């Protein structure tokens, strides 16, 4: 019952939160002393061109009307036309979504795969040499700048060892899109060359994203396990003669994962909203690279669209995280 209440409550807040976000970004975009029509028309535009475009894109209307129109458009999934590319922003973001999703899933998978077991082991071997070494690695992983790590990985694995591609998502343009996920599409058409190419292109950007994410997961898992491992129920289970590995991996871990799951949710949200730097350095054609290009081109409409996307992603991720909490710890939904 409590789970349903959480979902309804979160959904109820979704619309006002997005509207609030829209008001903020719309206001900011109109405070900046620039004219999107001049950007759209280019350096050499004539006054006639400016007037025509102002009318075409509705910039000739009063601000409140412009905002209401923008609200209506966003409600129907229309984020407007990019003032630089002159293409629909929703269509562009939708087109780029599979690339970002594919990289996100790979990076989150890697970070969870290594982060949780290492976090548990670190807690079990508290203050051992393993724990100290892992602490150094995780602190380094959190501190390292992603663009620096990305370039170092490129130098080492692409340039010096020549074992991984330098950039891009696949050699050439990849298979004709079915789902847009190259790994899945390659399997669907059983194109092993494309599959190998897609996976090899994914390795370096996924590692770059996964390292700091895994470090976060290790730290939170370790702290969670240390807190739970001294609980009375663990003492009771040991007294009952339940095998130690079973206690740790089934009972302790489940209770220790609450804060880790929250972190995984946030990491997922950050990656989904565009791993801006990593996508740019690795020339990964996702939403993050689109955001960078939009910022470089001062494409305010696209930047607004990206901001809405980011806001929506975090709201959804928070909702999923809350639901996950109730599944992991049924007490929270009672």
């Amino acid at each position, binding site marked *: 019952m409590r789970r349903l209440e959480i979902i309804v409550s979160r959904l109820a807040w979704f619309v006002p939160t997005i509207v609030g976000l829209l008001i903020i970004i719309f206001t900011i975009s109109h405070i900046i002393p620039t004219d999107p029509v001049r*950007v759209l028309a280019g350096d050499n535009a004539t006054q006639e061109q400016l007037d025509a*475009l102002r009318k075409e894109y509705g910039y000739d209307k009063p601000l409140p009307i412009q905002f209401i129109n923008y609200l209506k458009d966003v409600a129907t999934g229309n984020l407007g036309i990019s003032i630089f590319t002159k293409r629909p922003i929703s269509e562009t973001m939708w087109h780029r979504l599979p690339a970002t999703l594919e990289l996100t899933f790979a990076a989150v998978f890697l970070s969870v795969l290594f982060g949780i077991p290492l976090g548990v082991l670190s807690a079990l071997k508290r203050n051992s040499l393993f724990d100290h070494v892992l602490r150094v690695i995780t602190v380094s992983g959190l501190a390292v700048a992603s663009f620096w790590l990305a370039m170092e990985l490129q130098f080492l694995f692409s340039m010096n060892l020549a074992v991984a591609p330098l950039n891009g998502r696949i050699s050439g343009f990849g298979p004709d899109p079915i789902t847009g996920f190259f790994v899945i599409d390659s399997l669907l058409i059983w194109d092993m060359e494309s599959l190998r190419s897609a996976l090899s292109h994914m390795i370096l950007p996924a590692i770059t994203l996964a390292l700091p994410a895994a470090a976060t997961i290790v730290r939170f898992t370790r702290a969670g396990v240390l807190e739970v491992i001294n609980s009375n129920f663990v003492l009771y289970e040991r007294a009952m003669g339940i095998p130690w590995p079973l206690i740790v991996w089934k009972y302790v871990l489940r209770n220790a994962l609450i804060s880790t799951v929250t972190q995984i949710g946030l990491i997922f949200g950050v990656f989904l909203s565009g791993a801006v730097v990593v996508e740019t350095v690795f020339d990964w054609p996702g939403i993050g690279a689109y955001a960078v290009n939009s910022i470089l081109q001062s494409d305010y409409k696209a930047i607004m669209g990206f901001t809405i996307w980011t806001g929506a992603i975090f709201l959804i991720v928070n909702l999923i995280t809350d639901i996950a909490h109730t599944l992991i710890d049924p007490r929270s939904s009672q």
Partner: protein
Amino acid sequence: MTKHPFRLIALAAVAALGLSGAALAQGKYVHANNSGYDNLDPHAVFDVGRAASRINFYDGLYRWVDNPPKMIPWLAESHTVTEDGLSWTFKLRQGVKFHDGTEMTADDVVYSMERMLAMKKGPATLFMAIIDPGTTKAKDRHTVVFNLKEPSAVFHSTVPEILIVNSKLVKQNEKDGDWGQAWLSKNVASTGSYTLRRYDPAVGFVGARFKDHFAGWGAKSFDEIEFRTVLETNTRVLGLLKGDIHGTDGYLPQDQIARLRQASNVQIIEQESMRVFYFAVHNSRPPLNDVHLRRALSYAFDYDGFNNDLLKGAVSRNAGPVPNNLWGVPKDVKGYTYDLEKAKAELAKVKEPMRPIVIGTLAGFSETEQAATLLQNAARKIGIEIKVESAPWPVVQSRMQKEDQMYDMVPLWKSTYYVDPNNWIGEMYGMRYLPLRNNSYYRNPEVDKRLEQALKVTDQSTRDRLYQEAGRIVVDDAAGIFVYNTKWFGPYAANIGGIRFCPIGNAQDMRWAYFK
């Protein structure tokens, strides 16, 4: 009517290039671009960053090649112009095929011009002021007439930008009167050198050689060209060093050029471009409306220090508004030199009350910030206070186009939109371009008389003289601080030959290139 000898030039050009439709071709050229190919419509995009799709997929009536740029006949064989300069008749080449096999005719040219004028985007800028919708006529199947509202000598140099689309195909794909914009943003309907093979707005495009192109092909021309978007400079450079790509943009930072020069598998092709760096000065606002203050500031800029030390000699001194490598430049004008004594002498003659001068620089473009700081330091030595404010280009641009909001000075570049002195001195200082392009708010009837006359006469030597005279006055008036003309350093794989750099398109016209 004046007959232009373009037909002979066309034959000579084709013969000189050794082109043959039956020639063999080979390989795939891969280029990494620093800007996205997110729209393929030749009438919607018009910036240098996306020039490759316009040049390689589409043909114009004429075409720019080489440096200094030469205009060669392309879809049109020749043209005539009436004595009053209003009616321009172009004779089209016969038998030119679109990619779908249909023949290109004068109707396609008319449709392309009407489409540009209706869309009012990108290249329409060049034509809206001089051609009204509905006035372009197909005289017969292979003759088209452009009727201008007023005489315009500049029209001639903008003809290569009239890129022709397949009108029947585009019309079939029009939706809700959009002139086929949605469809043409991701498709190609042209006669151009390459057909569209793959396109992903997030990645780039692949073009396949159009075997039936009217101009034929060289013996070693590429079979395919691939242009990919790679935003990160370091990744483009590494890709070239590794051999993943064969070429990238020619305006890389000098430290990256130096790095590439050391690689045996990379060549750097160096050319003087047509991109003038200067300070736009607000000539109408006190105290900068005083010519002596403007001259004092011109003497206070350390040109050698900036060009040779800060920019490591990667540019060439340009003393006036028109690029050195174009006609219309008064060769006897040496421009200002860094001389603080002369600056002080000029400053002593200033009658206007002094106040701090505000320079607006372009955020993210460090050269503009360095130039402003250099001038600020020198000006302080002679008692002029300068404040430097930085803002993104759209903000600076918006302020520049309003006389009351324009900064006192803005360091920036004037790029090539068409190869004619009017692109520089005309638009920068002609009163007809106030306030959108003449952001210096310079109003000099003597200069304006010459610029206006140069727009109307078609005789080249007369125009050359008029632009030279106007240039002398502008420099003497110190209407701007003219610093340098950009050099282009094209980085290509060592095995690439046949790159023909032209300031229009920055060497991205790939039909001439080949693997050695």
